[in-house]
């Protein structure tokens, strides 16, 4: 049995009276690639954002390596360094160049030396193919380039789990490929990844497990073939029919 990295129990989240997540139970094991799919408003992004506490859950437990991080005593900043987050809108630090974007967290949060942080950053910038652009500012890069830098920035913290929140949704179609290629490579290298995506083909290829969410609950989960090819639930079938039509 693989080690559970993240174990979510009875997670609830509501914005005012609107319940976005209802009693979600869900685990991510070490080395696993999990894709979260579902229509917009289904709560998949909120689930991802709850996992690194960008949203505060209204109830339930998030167990990271055996510890409930929703405990009041738990050091949230420390916990977040174990999760690498990639945003839909990239969110690169606008005041820093490419290299500094990947270095600043390592230096200021992980307290690594400048040299160590720099060589680590360059290692990951090379993996995403952006090592030539270390001096560029975010505003000088294309969307795909920005997202690849954002991936390198997250990887440079050497996280246990990589979280991707619709990483290709804000990209021009011709740039989707370059980002997915990088992600595919990370998956092959054995990174633990949790991906919210609308790219069904990509989800089928890379995931060990696909989770389909609708209206704040997990409707169906299983291997890509189970969920994407032979779904058992009516809601999953409907969703797939709609997305394939497009």
């Amino acid at each position, binding site marked *: 049995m693989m080690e559970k990295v993240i174990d979510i129990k009875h997670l609830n989240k509501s914005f005012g009276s609107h319940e976005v997540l209802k009693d979600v139970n869900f685990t991510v094991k070490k080395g696993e690639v999990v894709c979260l799919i579902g229509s917009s408003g289904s709560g998949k992004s909120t689930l991802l954002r709850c996992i690194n506490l*960008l949203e505060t859950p209204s109830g339930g437990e998030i167990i990271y390596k055996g510890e409930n991080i929703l405990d009041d005593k738990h050091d949230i*900043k420390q916990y977040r360094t174990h999760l690498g*987050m990639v*945003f839909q809108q990239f*969110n690169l*630090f606008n005041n820093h160049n490419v290299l500094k974007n990947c270095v600043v967290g390592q230096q200021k949060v992980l307290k690594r030396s400048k040299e160590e942080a720099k060589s680590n950053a360059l290692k990951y910038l090379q993996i995403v193919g952006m090592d030539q652009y270390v*001096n*560029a500012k975010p505003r000088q890069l294309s969307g795909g380039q920005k997202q690849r830098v*954002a991936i390198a920035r*997250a990887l440079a913290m050497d996280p246990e789990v990589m979280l991707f929140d619709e990483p290709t949704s804000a990209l021009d179609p011709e740039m989707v490929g370059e980002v997915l290629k990088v992600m595919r490579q990370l998956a092959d290298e054995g990174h633990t990844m949790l991906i919210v995506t609308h790219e069904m083909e990509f989800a089928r290829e890379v995931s060990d497990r696909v989770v389909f969410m609708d209206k704040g609950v997990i409707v169906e989960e299983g291997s890509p073939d189970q969920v994407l090819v032979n779904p058992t639930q009516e809601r999953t079938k409907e969703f797939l029919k709609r997305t394939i039509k497009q």
Partner: protein
Amino acid sequence: MSLDIILSILKENWPSYLRGAYMTLLIAVFSTIIGALIGLFIGVMHTIPLRKKSIKSVILKIFNFILTVYVEIFRGTPMIVQAMVVYYGLYAYGIEMDRFVAAIVVVGLNTGAYMAEYVRGGIESIDKGQYEAASAIGMGHFQTMIHVVLPQVFRNILPATGNQLIMNIKDSAVLSVISVTELFFTTKSIAGANFRFAESFIITVVIYLIMTFVASRLLRIVEKRMDGQDAYQVQVKREE
């Protein structure tokens, strides 16, 4: 009014004019710096996230209320009145302030009140994603402020700071009411001695114009510097 008279006034009084202009610049520059620091401080204090009900958050709220009162008072009253109250008010309590120090304090506090609003606006205009990205890699509020948000705020408020500097160069003239020997006060003395008011003040107009013009150009250069080059250097891959 003739050029000859202007030139002869200048010839006779140029050291006084220069000293006055120097005082004006000194007051304007220092008070702008002090004001910008006050503004930054207040702006940051106002954007500290308040967590639940703790003693800390109550203290912070009281402190922020005091800061708001300060901003309202200094924004809502004329600087000439503030100068009178600060200087003669303290004088009445036996505290004799140096006039030059009093001038910097008054203009600095005044600038701070305006800058506080610029900074608050500057911080609020930073995209939420910048905070989220910083939080996501484990930065705390102050780390996020120092390494991510404030550098961007600096750039955004630079034009407003420049405006404030130019306003301070001009408005420091009102400090003549507490007999600070800046450019306006100096000119008044010169004109009072030679009875050539128009000619004496024409010179002053030119000096003020030169100072404000140079200040605005310098700030433009600083802005350009901060933006960096439009092009970036692509690193050539080393063959190994």
